[in-house]
């Protein structure tokens, strides 16, 4: 990966392939190290901006930087002035976040693990409600902690109503917690709770969603705009890339492996599985296919 025989568009030599100097490697590594500071943007740092520009203009340098990143166990999602060097950690990388570090309770309790994962998925689903939003580079999602919680609760309630209408007994079988419907796990967890100090109850769903969002602020995925509705955030380019190019497809692959999602005909979006959920035509709403 580090070798190349292409003519660089810029460089010191004309015609002959330029040799890689230790200085180039240092610059490439420097760029990667900038990428590891997710909150830093090229617009805010002249050196970072210059390296990003060089990455885009100089394929040789770009390959070198990619190679450094790969060696460190990083996946390069995009290098651009808006996102900087957006890198994600591969699974076994030292940069990967382990579940136990994220939440000790989630590591031991499967219901809590599910709720934490679901919170992240729900944040993404509400940040990019329509398929176009996820595809549109200029789109900024706006989400609130309470909004995400209420949204998921609402979906759960509709599932509950459907189950009731079908006459199904959704109470799970005792001693087989794994067979409980996923929506029930969320629905029965309390939304919030009073604590002795004024902090959020960490085991409540608002607490779990709030933790997900504040964690994403640290990883440069969200920016906090206000404290309204339990915390209001907007998305960053990095988050969109991460969801679009990595997480969405990983989760989809898992879902497909379970045989759940019907094979799509390649159109933009799937309808919700239940035809009774059909909504107003031309409303431009994300629930239905265009």
């Amino acid at each position: 990966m580090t070798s190349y025989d292409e003519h660089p568009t810029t460089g010191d030599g004309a015609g002959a392939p330029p040799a890689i100097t230790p200085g180039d490697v240092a610059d490439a590594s420097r760029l990667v190290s900038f990428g590891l500071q997710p909150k830093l943007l090229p617009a805010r740092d002249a050196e970072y901006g210059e390296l990003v520009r060089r990455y885009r203009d100089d394929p040789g340098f770009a390959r070198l930087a990619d190679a450094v990143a790969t060696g460190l166990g990083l996946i390069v999602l995009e290098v651009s002035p808006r996102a900087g060097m957006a890198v994600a950690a591969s699974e076994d990388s030292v940069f990967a976040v382990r579940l136990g570090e994220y939440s000790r309770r989630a590591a031991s309790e499967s219901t809590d693990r599910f709720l934490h994962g679901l919170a992240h998925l729900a944040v993404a689903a509400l940040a990019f409600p329509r398929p176009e939003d996820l595809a549109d580079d200029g789109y900024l999602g706006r989400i609130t902690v309470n909004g995400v919680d209420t949204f998921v609760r609402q979906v759960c309630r509709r599932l509950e109503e459907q189950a009731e209408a079908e006459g199904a007994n959704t109470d799970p079988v005792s001693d087989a917690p794994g067979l409980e419907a996923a929506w029930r796990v969320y629905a029965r967890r309390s939304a919030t709770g009073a604590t002795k100090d004024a902090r959020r109850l960490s085991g409540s769903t608002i607490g779990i969603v709030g933790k997900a969002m504040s964690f994403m602020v640290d990883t440069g995925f969200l920016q906090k705009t206000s404290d309204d509705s339990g915390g209001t955030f907007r998305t960053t380019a990095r988050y969109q890339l991460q969801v679009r190019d990595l997480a969405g497809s990983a989760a989809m692959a898992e879902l497909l492996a379970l045989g759940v999602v019907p094979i799509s005909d390649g159109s933009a979006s799937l309808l919700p599985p239940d035809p009774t959920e059909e909504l107003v035509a031309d409303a431009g709403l994300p629930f239905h296919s265009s």
Partner: protein
Amino acid sequence: MTTSADPSTRVSLGPAADEGLARRLRALACTAPLHDLDSRKANLAGEYAVYGMAEVALSAIDLVTLQMDFDTGADRDQVLARLQPRVAAQAPQRPWTEHERVARWVLESLINVGSVDRGFRAVYGTFATDGSYVRRDYDFKLIEEVPGPDGGVYLRTTDEAVNVLVGALDTDVTSAQIAAEVKLEVLINRGRLADAQLAAEQARYRTVQFAETLRRALEATRRNVRAVDWMETVPDLIHEALEHIADRYRHENAILTNIRRARDESEDPEHKRRAAELVDIVKDCIRRHTQLQTRLLEAGPLFRAEQDRQAFAGPTARSGLDLYGQLLAPLLRLPLEHGLRVTDAFFSSAIGLRTPVSVRVTDLVEVLLTPPVEREHLGAELPEPDLLDTPDDSRFSEAQLEAAQVLLDLPPDAPRRLSGLLAEARRSDPELPYLVALLAVHAASPSVGTAYRQGEERLLFAVDDGARLDDPEFGGADLIVGSALLDAAGMAAERAEASAPTDPPARALVPAGRKPHHLESRP
């Protein structure tokens, strides 16, 4: 777990009967936390047997239900404060801190603070379609904590709790409401106000329950247009609700007119009081309806604005993954163990990265040896307040008041002259005569009306017969002070009959036209 049963020995009466049984079992389970309170009180440190915990709990559910409004739930501190009088009444001799503790314990038990879900779980068994016996978990909450608009935590009662409270398990809200209203009207027409009040209170619970159902639907609409069917379901819902409000409003206004008439025409004070309470309840119902109506009218414009915003956003050329439709919605239908695989995959690839921290020993030594920085967030030290003892400026002490009252506790057949009382008082305490004189002057114009209303049996009075007081400290009339026995039973009977209790019989004790002389202090 399931156990397969031999079909020949099956006891199931068929799926319908079993479903009914399951429903009743669930209803029964909702009352279990209340019974549980009374059995668990023995485990509390201290002697708590006097308290009727289930009673306190039901009253707490009442308070939360009546206090919760359209937007927020009930305030926790207010609920606790209003709960306390009932707890205190159960054991008046105990300290108020204990009452507070009991109220808090009951409320926290109803929320089930100890559990991670903050809810309850009951296990019951049903027969599955294949005849096997299945044990199922029923999860429910009685009081849940919800976020308020100001970021605080509020309390709301769940549908289960309201059902337990009203005692009408699993009933249709609208029909129950109509039934309660009709009942109320009939009862008022018959003049049975005590029953009417009960019915009105039940009607109010129904109203609250109805508002709660609508609130949830509207809240979802507001936040998330796409989650709600705006072609049929919601317009129908709004239409139905508006019709309901118009209907109830007419109905309740009619009831209000009726009760007001009952209140104004009734001669029985008890009836009057009940009617007045009913007026308040019905007014509250009307207020809640008006509030609901406002929300309903706001819903349409809100939907249109939201639709405009989303419909006219320019379409993009590319389209990506539909996170909700393709991922989240199907995921929530899955059983937990399958859903977990999907969320794990999403979590591990969406979580981002962290930069590991590596520590150099030299840094570590420095960090460990640095003395901790004083925490600044505590703010400036408060100056010690310079407190002065408020001087006790009461003219007389409690003991003196008691002594004076003993002195004035005269037998009804033996009134005494004020001069004699003053002299006796002076022997025990030089200050006491002033208090005795003061009380005697008060007795010259006894509060007969109050004594009459409160049904007291005796009354201190003082009469001026023209004799002059000969005393080194006081001047004026030498009053005759005595106790008058009041005919409590007769007065009660008269109260019941009298339309306007203005002239009580005790008035005759004070001779007309003889104004008591004012006492003046001698210089």
